């Protein structure tokens, strides 16, 4: 099993003819994801050819793509100025899951798009996220497939490459994953740690969970308390940004210590207080997961 995506996921790619969209569409197809449609306004009726020769029909609107191909998930690679609109378009077209890869969406735009997907009951992952991968089944987004392998660990992270680092080390140590989810580095995101934890809780194949957080906000603290109250699985935590200065945005728009709130120290302490094993270095995640799986 896995969460959010699996072999039955039928994906539409919004922005399929763009630079990132076309590259990653080929990657997703190569990985085995069912990419059933692409959307680029003005290019409806054309066909996208993936690197392996797979042909994907292109539509002008997500609505048409969904009606004609039965797509049930969407991934968004459109430029930031149009991305919040693309999220709302996908939700309106009735897909169950929207994964927004785009970085740089205006936060006020996202407050409206977030309300919109909430109104329609659509799950949004991201924006500014690497997407999700259920190893051996499907991937949506940009997580390199070759660093993952099927297995019992669920991974949730606010970061992209840091997730790759952790997952690659797990894989190298022979520990596979049910699903790896990048929830995104922006202040307003559609799916938070708790949403993912709740989904992993329902997945019988997930036996341990890795939570990779960073400075800014209180999502990790909220997750820690939720874990103590709701989850009966071993959880390993890591927080990036112990050396980050207050008041400065560290790359991710959401990674900023405001006043004395949102520090790595505070988050690591809250993890420990709630029974989560805290890794000091990324490499320590592996041994802590091994410990957790053994018990």
């Amino acid at each position, binding site marked *: 099993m896995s969460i959010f995506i699996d072999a039955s996921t039928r994906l539409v790619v919004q922005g399929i003819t763009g630079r990132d969209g076309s590259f990653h569409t080929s990657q997703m197809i190569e990985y085995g994801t069912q990419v059933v449609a692409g959307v680029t306004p003005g290019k409806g009726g054309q066909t996208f050819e993936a690197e392996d020769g797979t042909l994907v029909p292109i539509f002008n609107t997500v609505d048409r793509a969904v009606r004609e191909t039965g797509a049930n998930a969407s991934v968004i690679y459109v430029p930031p100025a149009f991305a919040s609109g693309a999220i709302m378009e996908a939700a309106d077209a009735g897909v169950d899951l929207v994964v927004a890869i785009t970085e740089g969406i205006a936060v*006020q735009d996202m*407050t409206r798009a977030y309300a919109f997907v909430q109104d329609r009951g659509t799950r949004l992952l991201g924006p500014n996220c690497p997407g999700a991968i259920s190893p051996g089944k499907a991937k949506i987004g940009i997580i390199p497939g070759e660093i993952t392998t099927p297995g019992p660990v669920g991974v949730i992270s606010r970061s992209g490459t840091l997730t790759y680092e952790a997952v690659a080390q797990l894989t190298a140590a022979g520990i596979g994953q049910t699903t790896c989810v990048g929830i995104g580095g922006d202040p307003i995101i559609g799916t938070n740690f708790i949403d993912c934890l709740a989904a992993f809780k329902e997945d019988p194949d997930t036996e341990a969970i890795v939570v990779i957080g960073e400075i800014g906000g209180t999502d990790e603290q909220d997750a820690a308390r939720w874990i103590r109250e709701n989850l009966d699985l071993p959880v390993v935590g890591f927080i990036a940004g112990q050396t980050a200065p207050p008041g400065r945005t560290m790359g991710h728009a959401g990674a900023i210590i405001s006043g004395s709130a949102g520090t790595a120290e505070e988050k690591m302490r809250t993890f420990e207080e709630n029974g989560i094993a805290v890794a000091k270095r990324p*490499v320590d995640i592996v041994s802590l997961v091994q410990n957790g799986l053994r018990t």
Partner: protein
Amino acid sequence: MDIHEYQAKELFRAAGLPVPPDEVATTAEEAEAIARRLGGTVVVKAQVHTGGRGKAGGVKLASTPAEAKEHASRILGMTIKDLTVQKVLVTPAEDIANEAYVGVLIDRSSQAPMFMVSPEGGVDIEEVAETNPEAIRKLRVDPRYGLLPHQALWLADFLYEDPSLVKQASKMMTQLYQAFRSNGCSLAEINPLIVTPGGEVKAIDAKVSIDENELHRLPAVEAYRDTDAEPWAETRAREASLSFVKLEGDVGCCVNGAGLAMATMDLVKYYGGEPANFLDIGGSSNPDKVVAALEIITGDPNVKAILFNIFGGITRCDDVANGIVEATKRIDIKPPIVIRLTGTNDKEALEILEAAGFSADTSMDRVVERAVELAASA
């Protein structure tokens, strides 16, 4: 992006908010002339992107133009929290019967704009939040509706008893939200919001932060960017689309991805070193970005060793390798460079680097440890 008080006040005035008149001076003589034009007692206020100006001596009352000149000459060139004061704002001193606080910001936990108001104005609102949270009224603005009239009234009603003041403040809430919305703010704050002895409500200080992602559609606000007030390295980083934050250590870091960049800094510290910077070259790297990154890092005289940590995903390792080779041709790089590369096209990258006399590792820990040693022994 933080903007100056005088710029924030321009945005507020455009939204209709009552803000006393003012002018900016870059010399003491200009300040004197402005004080003469305004007449009466004025305030001379340092324009820097930080709080705590008052405590640092950056805000002074002047009862004559000569005094304004004197204050301005002392404040201009002053350093407040590492920032040099290059401009002062001169504005009439207002008699104050009452000070309150009004702010609106993007609140991540409620995923929406949030108003905060408090009758305890003129002080740090975070302090009030800790010591006297009941003195703050908060309101989540539903982005589907915006700030509704009764909500503006409800906020104003928390600040004042007098109906005339409530009415004025209520209107100002709506105007402030309008300024917040139309200028792509992540924060818009009036502190203090004052009441004059004559019963007028006015905004006499203003603080605004703009969401960088909105600037492409707000050329007038983008023009507020004060590159004179920011270090060269930050300007260069922004031009090259790099995320960069200067720190105090000696290990220069160049990483792809914000989370990995922070984790790399933390690992430098773990192994006993101090990172010189946060630097994320982003996802779709190209050689030019790497060159810019090395220019910025080597521009910091503290840097004793340079550490690359690249996990190739979208980022292609060969692009980064080409950038490193290119940069060594264009700039004279003194500190030693240690490189960790893994992921997309790492084999090609290794060939490129070895051909140019570099080596590279695949282990993050080994490379960070090595960089810390090199910096310590330099």
